[in-house]
């Protein structure tokens, strides 16, 4: 009897263990595109709650599940490495001398994936849709209504935009994937007559969604999106580019960093979004084929939004520019990088990202002596605090009229980097005698506090925007955005509104009217930056780092610093360029 039970137990155990192995075989057999023809990307989300919504005119709709990397092609792509705007669906976008009439020329032979021709009618329809949105709730509706007076078709491949105001950056800001993505054109033959706020653009029976890209959607779920190559892609037929080598693209919600590491170690993930140094090293220990942007430290590529400390310049204490300047002097950027970033980024000397296209402006500021030092000058900072009437109390904290010198630094609580960097800065400030504290908040709370001016200081990147010209970032501090505390501000959250701010804004406004690449811009940048250096409404800290690993087991020629044909952001719309450049590591 005992023996019978023993054998039965053994049999059950074996069956249980054999089951997954059997299932593995079944699953492998169901895959109709081999792994070596498939590229697997990671989606940076816990899930895509509405996988069948492809209406990206509604702000917040997910596009980085493959929609704007494989299906919705941009008109142009800004290449950070060269600083040039490369043609894509558009071949040229040229302004008149006044920069208030722009003419777009489209590539010949573009077709939607359902075979209908992509023409200037689609462009005009999309822009008109945004101009007609009286609620201004559609994505880019407010922007288009601000800039565009009218849009008209000249011929099938030519569109003319008549602007309300001169705008030298019209192409750059809205149609060239300046950061993350650009305005995507809608197929008129499908969208016409639809309610643009509730239309989901998804119907498998009708083959929706469609785009002009080389891949079509095969399946969508909250956890994975499958895109298969379209052999009839217009680009190959029109001689724009050969079909990319990958036959199938999958975007999956890999989830935690641990999952990303385990998947990449087992060659089940080809591209992961932003992991930490420890995770990269763990992956590389198991998978020597895993590579990052840079081979050695700092491993990362610079995201366009450098990190900075931003003050509410109307705070009763921190309205004193000398106190803000003291904080800037006290902070040791290198120490922050060593501790909070494990050496994976570089310090900022200005508010700008260190891309090649930004170098002329960074150099102009440096030459003018307005760049901040990256090492600390604690004693100089303390002298400024003491000059403001503060003295250290028994606890080593500065105090004036019985009140300690406090600063609560608001920071987003959703990413380890943000909190670690802030905590390290808090530590530095406390050691210097400032009673600093970290105030981690969620996105909604932070946005509300920022917009209404209900904070003292914030670790953030609210002047993000410039990647190849300086105006976009500098304009974020423009006094034209000033709102009194309590009212909603949409930029200049720190309420910088002094005489210096006004002088700064006048220079920035002048700069904004000049054509891109105008020779006088670097000098104007240096002149304006003097006010930032003097009044310190923001304190540049470090460049934003992102470690983006790729597995070269199945696919090679991923973008790296040695092969920098484009930035390695596979969640951006410039992923098309990466897809065109990938090569199979194991040809069939």
């Amino acid at each position, binding site marked *: 009897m005992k023996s019978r039970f023993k054998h039965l137990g053994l049999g059950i155990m074996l069956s249980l263990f054999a089951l*997954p*192995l059997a*299932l593995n075989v*079944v*699953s492998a*057999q*169901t*895959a*109709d595109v081999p792994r070596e023809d498939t590229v*697997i990307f990671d989606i940076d989300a*816990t*899930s895509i*709650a509405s*996988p*069948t*919504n492809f209406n990206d005119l*509604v*702000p*917040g*709709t997910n596009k980085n599940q493959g929609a704007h990397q494989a299906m919705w092609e941009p008109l142009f792509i800004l290449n950070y490495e060269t600083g040039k705007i490369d043609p894509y669906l558009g071949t040229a976008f040229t302004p008149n001398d006044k920069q208030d009439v722009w003419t777009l020329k489209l590539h010949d032979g573009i077709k939607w994936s359902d075979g209908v021709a992509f023409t200037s009618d689609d462009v005009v329809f999309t822009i008109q849709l945004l101009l007609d949105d009286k*609620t*201004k*709730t559609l994505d880019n509706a*407010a*922007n288009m209504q*601000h800039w565009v007076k009218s849009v008209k078709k000249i011929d099938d491949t030519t569109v003319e935009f008549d602007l309300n105001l001169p705008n030298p950056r019209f192409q750059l800001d809205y149609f060239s994937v300046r*950061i*993350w993505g650009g305005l995507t054109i809608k197929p008129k033959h499908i969208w016409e007559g639809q309610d643009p*706020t509730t*239309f*989901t653009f998804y119907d498998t029976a009708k083959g929706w969604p469609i785009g002009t890209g080389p891949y079509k959607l095969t*399946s969508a*779920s*909250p*956890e*994975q999106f*499958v895109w298969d190559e379209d052999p009839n892609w217009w680009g190959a037929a029109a001689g724009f580019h050969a079909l990319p080598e990958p036959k199938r693209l999958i975007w*999956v*919600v890999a*989830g*935690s960093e641990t*999952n990303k590491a*385990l998947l990449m*170690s087992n060659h*089940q993930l080809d591209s992961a979004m932003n992991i930490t140094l420890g995770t990269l090293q763990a992956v590389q220990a198991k998978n020597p084929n895993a590579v990052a942007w840079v081979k050695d430290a700092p491993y990362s590529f610079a995201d*366009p939004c450098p990190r900075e400390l931003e003050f509410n310049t109307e705070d009763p204490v921190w309205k004193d520019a000398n106190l803000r300047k003291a904080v800037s002097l006290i902070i040791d950027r290198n120490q922050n990088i060593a501790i909070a970033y494990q050496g994976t980024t570089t310090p900022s000397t200005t508010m700008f990202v260190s891309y090649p296209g930004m170098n002329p402006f960074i150099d102009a500021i440096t030459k003018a002596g307005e760049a901040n030092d990256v090492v600390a000058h604690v004693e100089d900072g303390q002298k400024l605090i003491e000059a403001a009437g503060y003295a250290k109390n028994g606890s080593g904290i500065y105090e004036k009229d019985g009140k300690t010198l406090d600063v609560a630094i608001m920071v987003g609580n*959703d990413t380890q980097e943000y909190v670690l960097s802030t905590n390290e800065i808090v530590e530095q400030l406390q050691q210097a005698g400032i009673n600093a504290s970290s105030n981690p908040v*969620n*996105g*909604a*709370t*932070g*946005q*509300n506090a920022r*917009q209404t001016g209900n904070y003292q200081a914030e670790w953030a990147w609210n002047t*993000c*925007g410039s990647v190849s010209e300086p105006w976009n970032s500098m304009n974020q501090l423009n006094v034209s955005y000033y709102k009194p505390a309590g009212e909603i*501000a*949409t*930029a200049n959250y720190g309420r910088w509104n002094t005489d210096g701010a006004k002088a700064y804004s006048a220079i920035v406004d002048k700069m904004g009217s000049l054509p891109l690449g105008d020779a006088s811009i670097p000098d104007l940048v240096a002149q304006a930056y003097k006010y930032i250096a003097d009044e310190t409404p923001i304190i540049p800290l470090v460049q934003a780092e992102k470690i983006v690993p790729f597995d070269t087991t199945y696919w090679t020629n991923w973008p790296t610093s040695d092969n920098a044909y484009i930035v390695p952001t596979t969640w951006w719309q410039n992923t098309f360029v990466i897809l065109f450049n990938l090569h199979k590591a194991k040809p069939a």
Partner: protein
Amino acid sequence: MRGITLNYFLRRLGIFFLTIWIAGTIIWLIPHLAPGDPISAMVARLASRSGFVENSAEIIQGWKERFGLNDSLPVQYVRYLGNLVHLDFGYSMANFPTPVSELINQALPWTIGLLLIATMITFVLGNFLGAIMVWRRTPRMIKYLIPVGMMFTSLPSILAALFLAYVFSFLLNWFPLIGSYDMGMKPGLNGPFILSVIQHGTLPALSIVIVSFGYWTLGMRGMMITVEGEDYMSLARAKGLGPFYMLYRYMVRNAILPQITAFAITLGTLISGQVLVEYAFSYQGMGTVIYNAILNQDYPVIQGTSFILIVVTALAVLIIDLIYPLIDPRISYGAK
């Protein structure tokens, strides 16, 4: 009905609706008390991905108008109650234009499929082990082994999930690490897909089972000890009844009643999902929907999911209350 008067039934029904109304009001109030709002959260998300959102004030104003967030709180509350009566939770603010019901319909089957099976296994296993821990005929070695196995109960489910993922997915490669079905597979009612779902659900289910069965085991053990000391057990033994018969008819049946009550309540809360387990395995389910809704202050989704949770839990308790007299003849409500 046996053991229940009409008066008791109506009173109990009244409490059921009162509970739902109070809970429904609380789930409306709490998100509104938190600083921020869903539209600001949406703009914050946009800003985090593209650096800066131009004209965000107009976007915020337009969407607040559309969702009625500019109306006074009493107006919003009355509208909310009206919608609840029609079970209309409206659109998700974070995933507009997706209706809340679509988000729930999408996630609920996965959660029920995973958690119902895991909870039933946990219930049966836990109670079985709790029973045999007290039963005199159980071999001593098993009595020692069960408490050792219960050490897992003190683990958080996320750690159990990580442990199982590392061993069975990464090292042994027996089970997939993430997702509800294979990468690249097209969902459908066919053998390979169903097998893939089972395969993908095994580790999440196991990580729930190994950290939860101990609660049932301990509860059952306590009840069994109480039952074993009853006079009728001495009488049964004196009558020479068989040990299996005594275990099932005398001990387990009497000890299991409170466990069934707890089980019903557990079933009611199933739909809230297992956030950490779902996160660990990137499994699509209600836990993730609720977590994201809270993160984005998505009022309609928070309210819709919580409301369903409340109704199901209250309904489970109501049903248990009403059927108790049927399960245990000693219980009667209001009967003279």
